[in-house]
């Protein structure tokens, strides 16, 4: 059966075009206009993915994320306004899976939906991950660029490993720091930036124009393993 998407969005025009776009991709769609209604639907229907607008009339969208995360792992894709990095980070730190900034092109949204659904259904990934000229053998902990083995420090490798675990998903600085260095280092974003820069120098063809280790300005980082559609 096709995945069921729950759309929580108060603007009728946006619901209208999303309805058309999602139907064209054969997704099943459930719509909710308020946070209350959305939460009720999420509990009742157990959708495969929630598309959540942060600016809802009755309650803050961030509360919806919090409530949904209290009882489940349903992937949440946030629709946020441009420039509100604080909201995006808050949404991601609360457990949202990704975000798309308004105004967005439908192609971009569909790609994010596919990636998010794929991550949630993916079983244990293969032991060799490949992106661009890079091969990462997770069993043997070996990284090769164009066939040549590249030496990574333990922290660099750990960082890469975390990014690979969440391929395609944006990770906030706090999340990365927490996973690599531990919860007591979540404020030391400089570490992270320096390590990302080093990883880029070792893995990217042109570190000033990274193809895979991408920055989400003001929010965090994302590992992109496929060429953009």
């Amino acid at each position, binding site marked *: 059966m096709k995945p069921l998407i729950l759309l929580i969005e108060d603007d009728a025009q946006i619901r209208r075009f999303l309805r058309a776009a999602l139907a064209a991709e054969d997704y099943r769609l459930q719509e909710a206009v308020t946070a209350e209604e959305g939460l009720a639907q999420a509990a009742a229907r157990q959708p495969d993915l929630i598309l959540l607008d942060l600016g809802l009339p009755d309650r803050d969208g961030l509360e919806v994320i919090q409530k949904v995360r209290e009882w489940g792992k349903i992937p949440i894709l946030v629709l946020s306004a441009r420039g509100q990095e604080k909201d995006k980070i808050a949404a991601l730190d609360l457990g949202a899976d990704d975000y798309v900034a308004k105004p967005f092109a439908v192609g971009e949204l569909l790609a994010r939906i596919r990636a998010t659904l794929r991550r949630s259904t993916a079983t244990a990934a293969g032991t060799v991950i490949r992106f661009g000229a890079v091969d990462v053998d997770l069993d043997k902990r070996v990284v090769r660029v164009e066939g040549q083995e590249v030496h990574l420090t333990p922290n660099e490798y750990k960082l890469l490993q975390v990014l690979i675990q969440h391929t395609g998903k944006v990770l906030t600085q706090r999340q990365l720091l927490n996973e690599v260095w531990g919860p007591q280092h979540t404020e030391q974003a400089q570490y992270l*930036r320096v390590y990302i820069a080093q990883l880029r120098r070792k893995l990217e063809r042109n570190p000033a124009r*990274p193809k895979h280790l991408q920055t989400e300005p*003001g929010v965090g980082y994302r590992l992109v393993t496929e060429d953009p559609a």
Partner: protein
Amino acid sequence: MREALLAAAIVAIATAASVLLRDTLAPTNLAMIYLGGVVAVAMLCSSRVSVAASFLSVAAFDFFCVPPHLTFAVTDYQYVFTLAGMLAVALVISTQTGRLRDHAAQAAVREARTEALYRLSSRLAGETRVFEAARSAASLAEEVFGARVAVFLPEDGRISFRRRTSDLLPVPPSEESIAQWVFDHGHKAGLRTGSHPGATALYVPLRGAHETFGVLAVLPDVVANVESRIFAPEQQQLLEVFASQTALAIERTLSQRAAEETRVHMQTEQMRSSLLSAVSHDLRTPLASITGAASTLRSQGGRLPLETQRELLESITDEAERLGRLVGNLLDMTRFESGPVELRRDLYPLEEIVGTALQRMEPQLTGRLVSTELAENLPLVFVDDVLIGQVLWNLLENAVKYTPPGSPLGLAAFEEHGAVMIEVRDRGPGVPPGEEERIFQKFYRAKSDNARGAGLGLPICRAIVEAHRGTIRALPREGGGATFRISLPVESA
């Protein structure tokens, strides 16, 4: 009284000297001693006293030196001539010396007055606010007149003792009405004047050419001689000139402020109208294309060839994106103008910011060679990554917009003189000479601008860079094209 005693003492000394010498000198020569005394008196005392001293000297001379001694009688009639001549000479000396002294005193008064007025005008020349001007005048008046002085300024046409330049003036609140009367009528009143002579202070209006701006209150110090000096006619006159000069300075201050307000107002108006015309044009054009294309598709979509439908759809998305960028720029500009920009600064490798900007530009960079030359070992930059990224993105977007398709672009960074320089370089037509600064002004469009920019991108860049205490400039590029150079000071967190 003291002068009279002094004069008497001098005459007495002259007499004593004459008595001692009257056996050796002829009486006519003794007269010279008295004349010397008269000169001394005339120099030290007022002319009234010295005239009196002249008569006294002649009398003493007659009594003590002209035989027979110790009587006023004169036996030898030639002494009548001596006495008359002596009196005449003494009187001339007294009056002339007195006049000379008065002249000198008047000159000193004039000089003091000129100096006081000069100090007043030079002190007031620098004042741009009414209250400050009034306060300067009051404090100078205290020095010049040796009295306590305050200026009371009106609030809505009412003189209020609350709005005054000094709190040290002990005037009773009941005298507010005297000050009000002075303010309303433009005549002085209070202490030792025709009206309310018993008041604590003297109230002088600050009368300008057309209106009265306030009231100067003078409270003489208690020491008697200082008080009397203030009420001397020439001091009163000086006080009035002082007040009118102050009024003129206030008048000038007010008219300057009015002119400045008009200028600012006109500038704001001009800005607003150019903003409105630019914004309405820039908002309407893409809206018109969107409306046109969408309505065409709705009413005739079925009859149009597929290719045309696709083109219309493309123009809708393109124009919508343009509209989105414009609205974003307008929002940014408003944000930067509504107060200091709040920076979320941290230390970043420049590479990362450059990389993000290029990544965001990727769709527009297809078919272009983009070289990146980042110097090795650049220090971390202490910036707001989102905003500096936006600056780079804006510059790259401009470069794409204003250069021929396919022409190469360059991004370079290096350290120089304790600053990190970031350059966005192109091989386009370059910035027209003389417009390098103007292109950073809001809504300014170069004459050769066919790209329909809103004239907001570069002003936003400058606002962001300056918030980081950096600079941004447009430079001609060797070999043709333009270089936009950002200089960011190297700072630590």
